[in-house]
């Protein structure tokens, strides 16, 4: 069965706002930066924040979102029992 493409119909009456476009672009950049920063390593939130030069709380939000979307996973906790490390999910 041929798939209908109703999103194209919606485009005729609904304009996607610039904000949505900008945020989408920004998210993709941040995601790439985080994944690159982690690479082969296991890093905690302050490390990642340092590496990509973003505030810790924003880093937390994006890393946690990437964990939720199955891109990252938490591994062990540091010796001080303070921070989890995160790595790229296979």
């Amino acid at each position, binding site marked *: 069965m041929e798939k209908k*493409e109703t999103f194209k119909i919606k485009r005729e009456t609904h304009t996607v706002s610039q904000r949505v476009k900008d*945020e989408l672009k920004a*998210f993709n950049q941040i995601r790439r930066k985080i994944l690159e920063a982690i690479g082969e390593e296991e890093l905690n939130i*302050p490390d990642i924040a340092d590496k990509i030069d973003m505030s810790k709380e924003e880093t937390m939000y994006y890393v946690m*979102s990437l964990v939720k979307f199955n891109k990252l996973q938490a591994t062990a906790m540091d010796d001080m029992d303070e921070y*989890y490390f995160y790595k790229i999910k296979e």
Partner: protein
Amino acid sequence: MPNIEKKSFDALVVGGGIAGVESAINIANNGLKVLLVEKDLTIGGKMIMLSKVFPTLDCSACITTPKISEVDRHPNVTIMTNTEVLHIDKQDKHYFKAQIKEKARYVDVSNCTGCQLCEDACPVVVPDQYQYGMVGRKAAYIPFNIASPRVASIDIENCSLCGACEKACPTQCIDFTQEDKEYEIVVKSVVIATGFNLFDPLKIPRYSYGSAKNVITSMEMERHLAPTRPYNHVLRPGDGKMPDNIAYVLCTGSRDMTVGNPICSQICCMYSIKQAQLLMGALPMADVTIYYINIRSFGKGFEEFYEQAKGMGINFVKGKIGQIDELENGDLKVRYEDINQGKLVESKHDLVVLSVGAMANEDPKTMFKADTWKQDEFAFAQQKDLFYTPSLSSIDGVFLAGTTSGPMDIPDTILSSGAASMEAIRYIKQAKVEI
């Protein structure tokens, strides 16, 4: 107006939280037809979002979900989610006309299997409102795992119309041609179960909510502790550190004339004690301090629960919080008046939880004709005959279930819903007109 359908029911229940659900089941069990309208994408209200409930520590979802499935498959109940009540007009002695608007979900609910492939495909990430913004969600999404209905929805305001979801959907249930739909409903009685709003802590700037990242609300902590939690652990939103010294600030927005709310919210003491107990379980090494004015553990088994918390080593400090400041490492400096010592004291915590109060939800006011819907001085629904018929609103035939009429806990909400539905059934049975 195009797109208007007419339907009739014995009762319209506004609000699909636990009060609305309980009322709908009670009324429907008596052979009466009920329309349950919920403005959110899922029924379950605030209760389904909670971790565990006091004083039994039952898992909240485990108590909510059976009620939700019961209402969902009840042959006498029609549920409309993502639907707003626009107007309810009393026509004569025994019937009402209501205008409702079902907002487009852009998903054919009957065909969605909840497989979440659209969610995987969607590229857009925005803060997840069901996790109070602590993580992101997609623009094509299912609210949470135990949502009812557990089907997808497209957040059109944030959708980039890329079509990825539509291509990914195996049952072809994504449909961007859907439009909002209005209905005219005729009913014999109305139950208002619109619940309460949480106090907005931004109204107390000295608590630094919003600017200090490790100051969170109790509802956010509730999410941290729930099975459908955002982080899988209790972590500081500011930097992902596992907290080990947590403070609770009771009466945030309650019993506080400076924010215009003189009343007590009735639930915060107990949910804070409950969270503190759960935290002791989740973080065995952590210190938990509860700053309070009076502990109001007044319900069945509550005082015993409070004593149990003290026995577990939770630190109760009778004190009034003056100011909360963020330190460089994200920790918080809490300045308070220690009543026992009679002096101003400073303490440090690495996470502060504001136990926010329950405020009136004034939505019903906009639904009824001006001046017919009356509120009390705190903007909760007026109870016209407080002792004789507590569930009666200012409008005959419109009954109040749960926190619509004031703050209350879950057991009281269930009892109040039982009362509202009993009154509604009696009212409907006495209605002579056929509609």
